[in-house]
């Protein structure tokens, strides 16, 4: 089948790509556009390591058909820092060691940012339930939850 031509916006940049009708957005990000920060842990929407936002909404990119993103806005982990200035969540994850192997980290950060945009003052329980779609096998989640809560507190006091 002929490839489809898609025009979209990724991390603020106008982007065009060709894809097969069956290709996932994750596949296109990783294998066509070189944006390998989004990871494929399962391909079935269970692990969250491919998390992106689509028009601001947190989504597993493995569950989105690339052909469907025309005209929409996508943000990936590569769009989280501004130049060499890290997002406060990225900085706090480093300071509080909220990662070990780091494979889940891009997805966790995307999810956490999405949470703080909706709810700048989450409780521990709210953080835990929001991040329940992001599997991490290394950390036991402790330092991740602490880093998200601490970032939220700092972002509130800076606002």
């Amino acid at each position, binding site marked *: 089948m002929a490839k489809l031509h898609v025009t979209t916006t990724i991390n603020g940049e106008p982007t065009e790509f060709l894809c097969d009708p069956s290709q996932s957005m994750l596949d296109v990000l*990783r294998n066509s556009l070189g*944006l*390998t*920060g*989004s*990871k*494929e*842990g*399962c*391909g*079935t929407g*269970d*692990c969250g*390591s491919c998390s992106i936002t689509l028009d601001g909404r947190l989504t597993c990119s493995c569950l989105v058909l690339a052909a469907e993103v025309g005209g929409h806005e996508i943000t*990936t*982990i*590569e769009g*989280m*820092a501004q130049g060499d200035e*890290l997002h406060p969540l*990225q900085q706090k*994850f*480093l*300071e*509080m*060691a909220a*990662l*070990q*192997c*780091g*494979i*889940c*980290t*891009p997805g966790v*950060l995307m999810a956490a940012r999405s949470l703080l945009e909706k709810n700048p003052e989450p409780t521990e*329980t709210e*953080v*835990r*339930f929001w*991040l*329940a*779609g*992001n*599997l*991490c*096998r*290394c*950390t*036991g*989640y*402790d*330092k*991740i*939850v*602490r880093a998200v809560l601490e970032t939220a507190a700092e972002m509130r006091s800076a606002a």
Partner: protein
Amino acid sequence: MNAIDNKWIGKRTIRPDGADKVTGRAGYSADHNMPGQIWGRVLRSPHPHAVIRGIDTSKAEALPGVKAVVTAKDIVDFPLDKSVMLGIQDMRWMCRNVMAREKALFHGHPVAAVAAISEEVAEAACKLIEVDYEVLPHVIEIEDAIKPDAPILHDFVRHEGKPSNIATTMVNKLGDVEAGFAQADLIIERSFKTRPVHQGYIEPHACTVSYAADGRVTIWSSSQGQFMVRAMTSLLTGIPQSNIRAIPAEIGGGFGAKTIIYLEPVAVLLAKKSGRPVKMVMSRDEVFRATGPTSGSMSTVKIGVKNDGTIVAAQGTFYLQAGGLPGSPLRGPVGCSFSPYHIENVLSVGYDVVSNRSKVAAYRAPGAPLGAYATECVLDEIAEKLGMDKLELRLKNTAKPGGKTVYGATFGAITFKETVEAIKYHPHYTAPLDKNPSKGVVRGRGVASGFWFNAGGESSAQLNITEDGNVNVTTGHPDVGGSRASIANVTAELLGIDHSRISVLIGDTSSIGFSNLTGGSRVTFASAMVVTQSAEKVIGQLKERAAKIWKIDPEAVIWDNGEARPAGPNAGQFPPLTLKDLAAKANEMGGPIGAGVQLNTTGADPGFATHCVDVEVDVDLGIVRVLRYTAAQDVGRALHPDYVEGQIQGGVVQGIGWALSEEYLYNAKGQLDNASFLDYRMPVCSDVPMIEPIMLEIPNPKHPQGVRGVGEAPIVPPLAAIANAIHDALGKRFYSLPMSPPKVLAVIDG
């Protein structure tokens, strides 16, 4: 080393690989591509047990876009009658695990592989391969595999002279158990079952390889040892190690399972045949079906005590699932189960049982959690029967320095007692627990202890001073959880310079000396040792250079706070020379500054842990929730406390999953029914509370910084600690994992 004097060791510095990992720049195994690469896929057996009578690949090879096909005949054969060992791995089993040879031994066993211009074409070609199978009856569970009339997997496996699925027996003995039990006032004997659990790393196995026209191979893949990748690929392809460069990608979790390989030799052979670089990436379904897990088990533990709580004898029998090929981690339960305790009479026996499942791989403290689960549950029952505090029972029997273990070692300085006391006096253990907070909800508290051997072994480091006076340190170990951060702290401390001036790298197999696996809780111990010795050599060089410049004796120079200073009679005679000063003069004073050390490290004393957990049981739904968790462990010296805590917290949560929700479920056809993260239920963020680690820093006297291995011990106690807590809540004991809602309800109703 006195903690108070440390500027960098023990500090929570930012890890050297951190920025790449929070921005998506870090390169994991599936993130790499090579020019001109094609894609490889694996054809897997649809049968759990079948003789492979023939494979016809002609239709697949004729499909446009297909560049190469590989079957077992392309892989080096290791005949069944002669063992060839690489570390603890027998290459007879590895070659048959990577590609089925005489038989397909489990559903999902690789039978052939194809490389083609796209994954879709490779997948389509796999379907065109015709395999002539003679389907055989299969066997999945231990209790079925050891029955006299069980389908036998391997003709060459004999037990007590007869064809059997029991591949190996391991016996560890101390004293005389019969005589020991004869002295006992109370004997408790119980049997337990656990299910296989997967290591559950989020990064599936993947590799990208090239085979050049001159026969030189480059492998990009993530593993727990690039030297293991090189050695196994060499053995399975016949390509000499000197022609293979294995580059360690960032690793997205391993937990033991990436101490062996699945794809690399297959990809190398596909690349060799096709003349094109080949990339292979497993799906999650393939990861579940054909890699790992760790063994399920069937155990019986019998412990005899005097009325005062003194343990007089202990006996353990542990049947472990090996999967389709021999090699379950018998040493774990056999050696670890009773080792926290001083017991004069012990008999510990393990059986390695093959059945039609994927071959097991190491998982964090391989096998030890299974044994501790049985032992620590029996101890809980003994304490209850004796009316003794559970920690008091453990304190009464703690292993002692100089004590002999069942696995043969004699303990040096050990610190088990301290972990028990840390829990005993902790506000968690002393806090009251409301056991009936509301209708339908009961709560309980449990404790358990655990032991892991820890390990030393081969490590290499190279420490180079850059021309501008900064530092590059290279070691040969993949960093699974922050080891580079620890090495940066050690190097900064020893050289007396700012942490930010140090880069820590992991060398590939062609750029750093041989280094054994990242596993067994050995890497921070061993790499800190070789880095320390490298730094000491470099400091020696720096002092010599300064002495040469000052024209004084090198013995009269000291290295202090990042600079060389004249000492003794010359003190104050010359202004100090900094690392930058000496680097600038390096070439005129004798050449580049740097040193490497390669060592077979020793002195890794064992690790002990004691845990305390509060659980809540919903008696209507059977759901068990962990409310509070405290884990005490002797960590020797925490070079970077965050990543030591992280090991404890991560290990505990894996243990919670093992205890409550994770299990491999096979159907009657011998196929895994839950090969996805949706159906294989690992703990998610909302399942667990904060995990409080208590790091006891009692320096290991055999290590320059006092380091003791940390990573394995935390997964040993949780299974029993949680089972004991549920007993405390419900008044009923569980003898089978996982304690999932249907089982909990069955026990409540039963």
